[in-house]
């Protein structure tokens, strides 16, 4: 979430889920909300039923389009051109919130100049969205308040994901839609505790509560609390770790509860990188694809088998409670870590329960300082919550932004083509998405019923493209990118535009990520998931092979 942090000072959903239904205008960009976050999708539905305007920007015809006032069907990876186009119209028509900009923002003039460089006709050409639709959307966003922006992976999973987010932040600042109820720039988090993992400092450059590793004072504080010497330099980001492992610089990898082989971009590279490790420890509840490459696998307890807290996408810290005993001999992750630390003779890992750990977190993290297990017994509290009388913060930046000056910065963002573009040989753009019924791979495959709803990978392809390639619905085709190829069954549908194909990455049988590209965003190192050039070939023989007949049983 580096994009948001750069503009406002911290990178979390600025407003609350409950405020969405009160919004007068909703701009959903790159988020298939009804599928990935159904409960938030319901808030959007509720708002629309109450008369809110909805603008959807997505290359696919997602279910939300049905409710939308305007659907901007942009080419994958051209979000910035679209947002900048919208902002140009807002400035041209004088729809910006001048008072807000003067009072709360900085760097406006330079920003304005950079936006005025964008020509609407060029935006139209890059995005494929008709200019009049851009104008309509701009008028809506510029004149209706409160307006809120929702986005997810669609916008961050690009080689320029950070810029996308900053462009959205600019839009919110320009229209004064931030720091008030039902406004804001709201990243909807995918996994249940991504927010918490970030808050807790499971990041190479910050401790808990985003206290910087490079900041002398913060480091001193943690050195005192933990009674040890700490490294003053930032660590490696995940993609860099695998690169370092590949080059032999990293010898040991300790992986907890992730399955990068299935979920990360460019799977074959990661597999190779892992094979170069000297020691690979995996801690998970299942013997995942990745775990099978490990030297040691430690069985962890599932979420219902331990106490603790999760922090949701709206910064709300909520309790998780132990409901059943851990299966077999599995143990909660925190216990395993404590045992290893104690066995290595290190102090500071004598915890008897999760609450004791939480107390230590509180003491070291100002934004969590006022949250206690007692206070969140009934319902969670949204950080920042600086003391135990503070009610929590439903929306951020009502007074000032978390930047040194207290003002939000307009950032200069311009459109760059995706790192990977189509060519004569690879004429299609592949976009990836998640299926509503599957949560990454492992958990829902193991839960009964889910495989029945959506049994196998279907690659979506437009009827016109299918006709050119003489492909039939349900036929097995070979999809290849510059990195590798996979087979998949087709689904001919107008959900995708011509020239674009779409696959999910929820199925182990079809490892879509073999195709995706590793070109990461320069700042967050998020690999480019969404856009990748592919070619499609028929595979006649696949009709009869046994392999194909076995597909889709959901067995791993």
């Amino acid at each position, binding site marked *: 979430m580096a994009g948001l942090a750069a503009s406002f000072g911290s990178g979390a959903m600025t407003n609350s889920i409950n405020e969405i239904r009160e919004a007068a205008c909703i701009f959903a960009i790159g988020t298939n909300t009804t599928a990935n976050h159904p409960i938030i999708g319901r808030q959007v539905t509720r708002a629309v039923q109450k008369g809110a305007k909805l603008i959807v920007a997505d290359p696919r015809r997602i279910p939300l389009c049905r409710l939308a006032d305007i659907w901007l069907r942009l080419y994958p990876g051209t979000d910035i051109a679209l947002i900048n186009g919208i902002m140009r119209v807002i400035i041209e028509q004088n729809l910006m919130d001048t008072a807000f900009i003067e009072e709360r923002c900085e760097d406006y003039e330079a920003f304005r100049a950079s936006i005025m460089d964008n020509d609407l006709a060029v935006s139209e050409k890059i995005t494929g969205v008709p200019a009049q639709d851009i104008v309509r959307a701009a008028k809506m966003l510029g004149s209706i308040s409160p307006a809120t922006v929702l986005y997810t*992976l669609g916008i961050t999973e690009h080689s320029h994901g950070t810029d996308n987010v900053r462009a959205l932040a600019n839009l919110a600042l320009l229209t004064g839609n931030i720091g008030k109820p039902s406004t804001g720039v709201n990243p909807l*988090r995918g996994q*249940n505790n991504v927010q918490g993992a970030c808050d807790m400092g499971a990041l190479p450059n910050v401790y808990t509560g985003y206290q910087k590793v490079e900041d002398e004072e913060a480091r001193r504080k943690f050195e005192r609390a933990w009674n040890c010497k700490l490294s003053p330099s930032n660590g490696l980001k995940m993609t860099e770790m695998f690169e370092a492992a590949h080059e032999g610089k990293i010898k040991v990898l300790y992986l907890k509860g992730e399955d990068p082989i299935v979920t990360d971009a460019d799977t074959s590279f990661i597999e190779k990188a892992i094979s170069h490790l000297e020691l690979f420890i995996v801690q998970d509840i299942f013997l995942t694809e990745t775990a099978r490459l490990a030297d040691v696998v430690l069985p962890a307890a599932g979420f219902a088998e331990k106490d603790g807290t999760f922090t949701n996408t709206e910064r709300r810290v909520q309790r998780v409670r132990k409901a059943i005993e851990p299966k077999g*001999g599995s143990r909660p992750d925190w216990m395993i870590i404590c045992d290893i630390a104690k066995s290595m003779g290190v102090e500071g890992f004598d915890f008897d329960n999760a609450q004791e750990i939480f107390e230590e977190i509180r003491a070291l993290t100002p934004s969590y300082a006022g949250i206690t297990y007692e206070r969140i017994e009934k319902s969670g509290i949204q950080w920042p919550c600086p003391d135990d009388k503070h009610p929590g913060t439903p929306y951020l930046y009502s007074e000032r932004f978390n930047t040194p000056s207290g003002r939000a910065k307009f950032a200069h963002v311009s459109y760059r083509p995706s790192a990977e573009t189509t060519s004569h040989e690879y004429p299609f753009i592949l976009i990836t998405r998640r299926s509503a019924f599957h949560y990454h791979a492992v958990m829902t495959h193991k839960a009964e019923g889910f495989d029945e709803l959506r049994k196998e990978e279907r690659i979506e392809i437009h009827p016109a493209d299918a006709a050119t390639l003489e492909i039939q619905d349900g036929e097995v085709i070979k999809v290849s990118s510059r990195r590798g190829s996979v087979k998949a069954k087709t689904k001919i549908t107008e959900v995708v535009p011509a020239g674009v194909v779409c696959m999910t990455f929820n199925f182990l049988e079809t490892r879509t990520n073999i195709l995706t590209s590793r070109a990461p965003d320069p700042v967050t190192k998020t690999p480019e998931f969404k856009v990748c050039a592919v070619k499609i070939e028929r595979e006649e023989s696949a009709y009869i092979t046994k392999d194909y007949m076995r597909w889709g049983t959901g067995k791993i």
Partner: protein
Amino acid sequence: MNKVSLNINGITVKADKGATILKAAQDAGIYIPTLCHCPDVSSIGVCRLCLVRIKNRRRFEPACRTIIEEGMVVVTDDPEIQRLRQVILELILSDHDFNCLLCPKSGQCRLQELVNRIGFNEHRFSRLEHVAKDLPIDTSNPFFDFNPNKCVQCTICVRTCHEITGNDAIDMAYRSYDLRVSTFADKPIKESVCVSCGECMERCPVGALIPKKVEHPTREVKTTCPYCGVGCGLYLGIRGNTIVRARGDDESPVNHGGLCVRGRFGYSFVNSPDRLSIPLMRAYDEYAKPSSVVEVTEEGRPITLPLVKRDGKFVEITWDQAIKYVASSLAHYKGDKIAAISSARCTNEENYLFQKFTRVVLKTNNIDHCARL
């Protein structure tokens, strides 16, 4: 807020302006039978079981739809109302497939409750033709079934699907006696736009929409959904050491009792036979002389004990061995030769501890997780 006072059954009751008679009565502890009323969705007043008498009005009015007025005088029960209700109930029962003994809803069924409360006139009832419709049961959805023979056409499910989920997967179709819940073009539910959220099933007052697996929990634990960043509050229903159901937490400020398909039905993975149960280790090490060598061959199974790999295969070892092995091997490497990846699925406490472990014990800042994804 403005209060309105009215008289119900001779008792003076105060209620919020704009409330219905039903709400005012319920808040005052006065029972009015209802069938098609569901507090989560708007009232449409189709069952007519909640009819009450209002002074100076010619007709009986449905309590669930009539807004209270200052000085209103309401009677919720008298012999005439009773007779009316009995007749309505008899008509509903006459084509209901009531084999309560085999019905999973038995004990929690609104219709049973109404029969107990209102009763019926045996003489009149026996003259009605009891022909339960013999419509096919829709078992296409993997999580719940729809048995139209038990449906009482209350339309709660339809209103739920429209108002709460916005999916509009189902609606009432056909006319009069044939009136029933149907998907677009009367296809099986699975082939409709239904997203299997189960909200309709949760609210069906009778045994028409019913989960596939009905096991009644013996205790409930309040917790948070592990599937996505929304973090819906929910109660897990436990029987023995098994999660048998989940229901949304009405008090949660996040989801107000709602859940999606994953949050409601996605729990059998916890009990999946594939769970890892013993630490595993690759078998080329000294430590891989475990007390019991259990070769683990199945792939993709969940783990419940540490594992080691031998000749490309894993063997199970004890926790003591596993911890010692990890601790002693980690001791050989320090600093930037090590990297750790934490998980966005683990709790805050575990993420905190893991980064502390990486920074303090492994002496490196090489810690990350899949946050950017």
